[in-house]
């Protein structure tokens, strides 16, 4: 049901975009009011969430250590998977963010008769990495619509991305990879009984929104061939805060814009915040130097303990009979031993 509801929600958005775009008022609303509102919600919400995490204390230094600690000089320490310095943490976090290091460890444990067998399982890692990197490339490519003159690196990126020149206009490899990766991630969520079991409405919603954005983008570029001049006019207008909604803007562009706006506005309320959250994760971004550098808990408070004096008072006679030195009577002396 979660799948169906989220699909319906996204299709409704598509319908709104397609229908409302037909009138001038609707077009102006979707092309101008909605994007600005979504951007404002995104920025405010994103910052709020990040700052709230950043301002929440990390009372204890609790890195998950995934390799040998730094201890004796002749034992080789695993300086990235179990970092003991800031540089090590930087390396660990870079690998985590850029290459999904932890996900790369993924394996599969399955029972074969009475034996637990482990096998490689890198598909999730590959799918996730392909999705995130192609999305980043596509976002950067969009700069050609938002900035004039177009920066050189964007043009270079565009050339590399369209290297194969299979279609007219050039087919971007990133478009194909993004669609393939999203389709795999959705397929995996639906097919794997365990992942389907844990999936919420919001998990499908994010996927369908992204798929809707990708499909509408591909449609407008390769198939419906949206009028690029009006798209650029519109995008530059948005970027320079002189918004216009040219009548030539086709429905598919408006659908694309509406879905992107919906995703942006939804972003701060969703699990998509993992983008910022991963950087703040205390099991990853702290050095395992616990015993060499004291970590301070800002809210550390005194607790009720059982002191030595209380202990000695309760067991005084037994301590004495056992010949263990007492604080009260034998102060300064060493034990009979």
């Amino acid at each position: 049901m979660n799948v169906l509801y989220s699909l319906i929600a996204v299709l409704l958005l598509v319908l709104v975009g397609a229908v409302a775009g037909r009138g001038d008022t609707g077009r102006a609303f979707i092309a101008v009011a909605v994007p600005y509102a979504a951007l404002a919600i995104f920025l405010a919400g994103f910052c709020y969430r990040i700052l709230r995490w950043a301002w929440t204390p990390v009372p204890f230094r609790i890195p998950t250590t995934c390799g040998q600690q730094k201890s004796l000089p002749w034992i080789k320490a695993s300086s990235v998977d179990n970092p003991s310095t800031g540089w090590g943490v930087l390396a660990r976090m870079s690998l985590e963010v850029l290459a999904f290091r932890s996900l790369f460890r993924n394996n599969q444990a399955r029972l074969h008769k009475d034996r637990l067998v482990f096998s490689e399982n890198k598909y999730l890692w590959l799918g996730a990495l392909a999705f995130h990197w192609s999305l980043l490339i596509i976002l950067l490519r969009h700069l050609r619509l938002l900035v004039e003159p177009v920066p050189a690196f964007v043009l270079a990126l565009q050339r590399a991305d369209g290297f194969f020149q299979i279609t007219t206009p050039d087919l971007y490899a990133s478009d194909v990879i993004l669609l393939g990766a999203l389709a795999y991630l959705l397929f995996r969520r639906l097919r794997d009984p365990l992942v389907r079991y844990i999936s919420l409405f919001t998990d499908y919603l994010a996927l369908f929104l992204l798929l809707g954005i990708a499909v509408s983008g591909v449609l407008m570029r390769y198939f419906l061939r949206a009028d690029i001049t009006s798209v650029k006019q519109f995008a530059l207008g948005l970027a320079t805060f002189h918004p216009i909604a040219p009548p030539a803007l086709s429905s598919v562009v408006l659908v694309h814009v509406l879905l992107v706006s919906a995703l942006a506005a939804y972003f701060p309320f969703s699990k998509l915040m993992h983008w910022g959250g991963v950087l703040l994760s205390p099991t990853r971004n702290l050095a395992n130097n616990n015993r060499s550098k004291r970590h301070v808990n800002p809210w550390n408070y005194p607790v009720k303990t059982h002191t030595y004096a209380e202990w000695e008072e309760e067991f005084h006679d037994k301590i004495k009979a056992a010949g263990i030195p007492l604080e009260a009577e034998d102060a300064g002396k060493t034990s009979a031993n």
Partner: protein
Amino acid sequence: MPEKLLQIEPRPPHGDWRDPKVDFHKGVFCYSALPKNLKYLGLPNPREWQPFDADWKLPPDWKRIILDGMKDRLKKYRSFRLFMEICVRCGACADKCHFFIGSSDPKNMPVLRAELIRSVYRRYFTLTGRIFGALAGGRELTEDVIKEWFYYFYQCTECRRCSVFCPYGIDTAEITMIGRELLNLVGCNINWVLEPVANCFRTGNHLGIQPHGFKDSIDFAAGELEEITGIHIEVPINRKGAEILFVMPSADYFGTPHYYTLLGYLMLFKEIGLDYTLSAFASEGGNFGLFSSHEMMKRLNAKVYDEAQRLGVKWILGGECGHMWRVLHQYMDTMNGPADFLEVPVSPVTKTIFQNARSTKMVHICEFTADLIHHGKLKLDPSRNDKLKVTFHDSCNTSRGMGLLEEPRYILKSVCNSFYEMPENTIREQTFCCGSGSGLGTDENLEMRLRGGFPRANAVKYVKEKHGVNLLTCICAIDKATLPALMDYWVGGVEIAGVHELLGNALLMTGGKERTTDLRGEPLVTEEAVHA
């Protein structure tokens, strides 16, 4: 033992996980904490109750207490807030949990264990959850949810294996710890955790051993060592002015096979002439407070530094124990430090400065011993362990909460001739829990322990069949207590020993008589010339 052989088989999940009903059947849960223990510790809602009762006698305002408790912890722990919010439910953690592998219960997937509490978080603490409820993944907090939390947060051993694989480092141990804290607020705790805690608070150790009993145990061990080695050994207790305070888990002097590890420590200390003392007050390095709440952990841990200061030692040495080292390594200095009355640890034999412990001033016995061996300060005869084919089980906490991987291996390879590793997905940072950690090692919970321990046992079985392994070594008191039953059930013919027991076997001591038996009093297989 369960009446019929447990079936470990994957079963596809069914139903809707948001239904909180659980079945407390015999063998898969721990009994409630006795009221006397709660009263002694000053914990809320002491009463007679059991998990299988319909009425858990929660306080009237239990819901407000839980929600306030969550609110408070969301403000205090970034880990908790972050881990409530960033999971994408990718499922990479699912088959990483030993309890899930052994039970096929989908709520034992780390992601769902966390969702049990996340769903309540979303319903009461997020805008979308308050407005859209179930559609936004929210779930009402009901008494059944409390029972479900109790069932599943006491079916997690806080081993952190899932957090190794999580792309965001979400650590179920953090979530379980907070979950148990919340349950503690309304008096839902287990006796296997709180009785040791109450004992430890009063007598200094989990087993409730009083000072004279402590002395008797240590003296008995010294006497036994004299019989085995022919060397008279004095073990100082509460001696002021010693250089080093040695702290160990209480099972080492009161449990088997832990006891043979104690013999190993004492032989080592005698041979190198260490200026040390034990303490009958700090007679426990382990800390079941960790399995109850952060506050309780701090209350129990305080005695380590207090006693070191009272006795005027220079630094502290710690014995073989898993969760004890999680506390000592990741919490002690923050909670009860700074230990500015101690000195940076220096090995009196090799003069090695333990820079890695310069703030906490506490060194792991494996670091200490590995350094001695590396500098050639110990005479060892590994052939004394020749009847043993040895493998090593990394404890969850020393591997994933510390990274102590090579030190024990270096010792083992120096003291025995046949050492074999288990498969790589089951050791080091990927090690599987014994299934009984975090206070779940009680016999009423045996079925779940055997299920949770299955992946570990399976890996041991593999090296037993491949290499004839007959000894599983470890550096954790809970392992030593619970792995024997696990091995008997799933593997057979594999004994458990501490690393320092094997060291004791192999250690050539100055003086004394020819050794004819190992520390367990069993004959050494090969006759060795005594180099004494």
